[in-house]
């Protein structure tokens, strides 16, 4: 905390509040948490990454430059393209056009860059129409090429998939679905966990025993086969939206036990605290005791536990979709994108199809570190 104090204090003034110890005494709980959180450098970096991810969720269509569903046989399985940032000494990013051909020996489709053709990359270029943030209709995208170009003179930063769809644009849309499904799933888990963990911790006795045994049983079952069974039973004719919510519910059933455990632990620790007893003594109803007095004081712990539960959600969705049991095309998620990388032969020929694994790993790590930092900060009085 010494860093926070001003370097010098003029002698004639009364001792200012900014002295480290005093600052700590008057700071609110949330302020203390912020100070402690700030010390956890990895968590700070991770929070920036997480915010970045959710900005992608909001602006996926702005960041994409091609319609994620538009396929073109002419550009199937194109490798990622090199972007040249400088044309001579001028900053004018461009990419090369390319020619598609068949390798006479292997019959594989190969693409050769054509250095004579420079395709300028434009910022705020016009592309397909969408509604920015779901509200403002526009055709502007962060990057793009001039309109009216054919398939051989366009950009594909991360290459294309088997159907010739642009991987970068699909990744943007996939991020939107994968991260919201995680967030929704964790919210549902949280509701389940808080209600059941709360009941368990607050009432104790037989309720506690039943809920605790249920959790123990659920934790000793290999869950993935079960969820696979549930997911496989979703009717084939369901719409994307229906499947989306069904999968969200299924993965939320995975995560609630850990949250319930945390909530129960806090409840048990707090039940006998003076302020809870006095709240009860002055005649607060049970609901009021729980939600007005108890919940705010362990809110921070819940937030931390929730953040730590998110990676599992993201991995579950990715795994289910990867197996073809989760979201199904035409829906786009990280798992759906990775489905194309399922067998070694494909991956060996077109390794860029594995790229969607990168955001999965980064997101999982970022949420883990963020959760760690939050968990340490949640108890600012400790140590």
């Amino acid at each position, binding site marked *: 905390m010494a860093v926070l104090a001003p370097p010098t204090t003029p002698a004639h003034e009364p001792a200012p509040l900014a002295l480290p110890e005093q600052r700590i005494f008057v700071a609110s709980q949330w302020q203390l948490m912020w100070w402690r959180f700030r010390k956890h450098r990895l968590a700070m970096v991770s929070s920036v990454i997480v915010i970045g991810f959710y900005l992608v969720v909001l602006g996926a269509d702005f960041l994409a430059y091609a319609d994620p569903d538009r396929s073109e046989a002419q550009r199937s399985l194109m490798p990622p393209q090199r972007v040249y940032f400088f044309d001579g000494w001028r900053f004018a990013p461009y990419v090369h056009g390319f020619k598609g051909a068949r390798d006479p020996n292997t019959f594989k489709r190969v693409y050769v860059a054509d250095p004579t053709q420079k395709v300028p990359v434009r910022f705020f270029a016009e592309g397909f129409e969408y509604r920015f943030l779901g509200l403002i209709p526009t055709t502007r995208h962060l990057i793009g090429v001039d309109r009216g170009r054919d398939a051989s003179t366009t950009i594909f930063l991360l290459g294309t998939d088997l159907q010739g769809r642009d991987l970068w644009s699909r990744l943007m849309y996939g991020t939107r679905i994968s991260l919201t499904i995680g967030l929704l799933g964790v919210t549902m888990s949280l509701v389940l966990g808080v209600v059941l963990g709360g009941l368990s911790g607050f009432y104790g006795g037989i309720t506690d025993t039943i809920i605790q045994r249920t959790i123990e049983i659920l934790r000793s079952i290999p869950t*993935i086969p079960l969820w696979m069974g549930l997911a*496989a039973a979703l009717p084939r004719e369901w719409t994307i939206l229906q499947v989306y919510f069904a999968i969200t519910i299924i993965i939320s059933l995975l995560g609630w036990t850990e949250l319930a455990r945390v909530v129960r632990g806090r409840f048990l620790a707090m039940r006998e605290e003076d302020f809870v007893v006095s709240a009860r003594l002055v005649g607060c109803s049970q609901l009021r005791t729980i939600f007005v007095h108890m919940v705010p004081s362990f809110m921070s712990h819940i937030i931390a536990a929730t953040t730590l539960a998110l990676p599992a959600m993201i991995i579950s969705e990715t795994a289910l979709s990867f197996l073809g049991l989760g979201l199904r095309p035409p829906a786009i998620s990280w798992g759906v994108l990775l489905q194309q990388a399922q067998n070694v032969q494909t*991956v*060996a020929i077109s390794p860029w199809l594995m790229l969607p694994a990168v955001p999965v790993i980064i997101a*999982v*790590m970022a949420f883990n570190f963020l959760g760690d930092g939050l968990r340490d900060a949640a108890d600012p009085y400790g140590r």
Partner: protein
Amino acid sequence: MLAYVGRRALLAVFTVWAISVLSFAIIQLPPGDYVTSYIAQMASTGSVVSEEEAQQLRIQYGLGQPYYVQYLKWMNLVVRGEFGMSMEWRRPVTEVIGDRLWLTMVVSLAALVLTWVLALPIGIYSAVRQYSPGDYAATFVGFIGLAVPNFLLALVLLYFGFVFLNAHVGGLFSPEMQDAEWSGARVWDLMKHLPMPALILGLAGTAQQIRIMRANLLDELRKPYVVTARSKGLTELRLILKYPVRVALNPFASTIGYTLPYIVSGSIIVSLVLGLPTVGPLLLKALIAQDMFLAGTIVLLLGLMTVIGTLISDILLVWIDPRIRLEET
């Protein structure tokens, strides 16, 4: 001690019951009943199921009766070891599953053992040599293990194997041993192929266990009894292994019960990527083809074996740790 084991056994019985209900639910979930799908399946391949046969099947499985009757009838068959017919393979489910269930357990147990063998010494090293390069390396590997879903790890390793070694590194047997009879040579072949899937499956668990062991041991190392022991002139190695490690081992050991289900779960997906002859690929196929008896049976047996494994590890834990053995409950 008996009370403790009894309690665990009772819980295991409940768990098995819960698993059986859930597996039954999985069998029941798809629209239409077994016989209708069976007839449709047969018709699509050109054969005809006679009315009598259909009727007999309906009676055997109690179709059309309330769910609990159907459940009891199914349980009755299961207890006698009859798991029904696999529609896709048109053979009894037990025959289709064959060795695969055992191989699943072998792979999972190998992963579990590897987790322990790696996590224990690395965890101890990380704690004793805190902030050394080795500690940082272990921490780094730990984070990778936690962040990379194991099926992606499998995919990446397969890719590297393909690119750099130009070999298919998956599978549990060499091609010539694939369908061979069980023999010493085949077992040896299996042993040679085990480390790779075991490592992939065990990495996440290992990472977690290293963290737990390190944290526990760090707490213990600061305690006065360690200083006392050291001042009495015990060698460092003996001191650490004899006192703090034994204390730190306990929370470490108690997580084993939750590690096995986790590994078995993971093995399903990893097997698909690596092409292991476990129940994983079979389950996926069965689910996609809505071959529900096969799928339900796999889920049931997998759950059963996991529960037994967990129970055994619980009992071992009691045997290792006197505090639980003597605990009053």
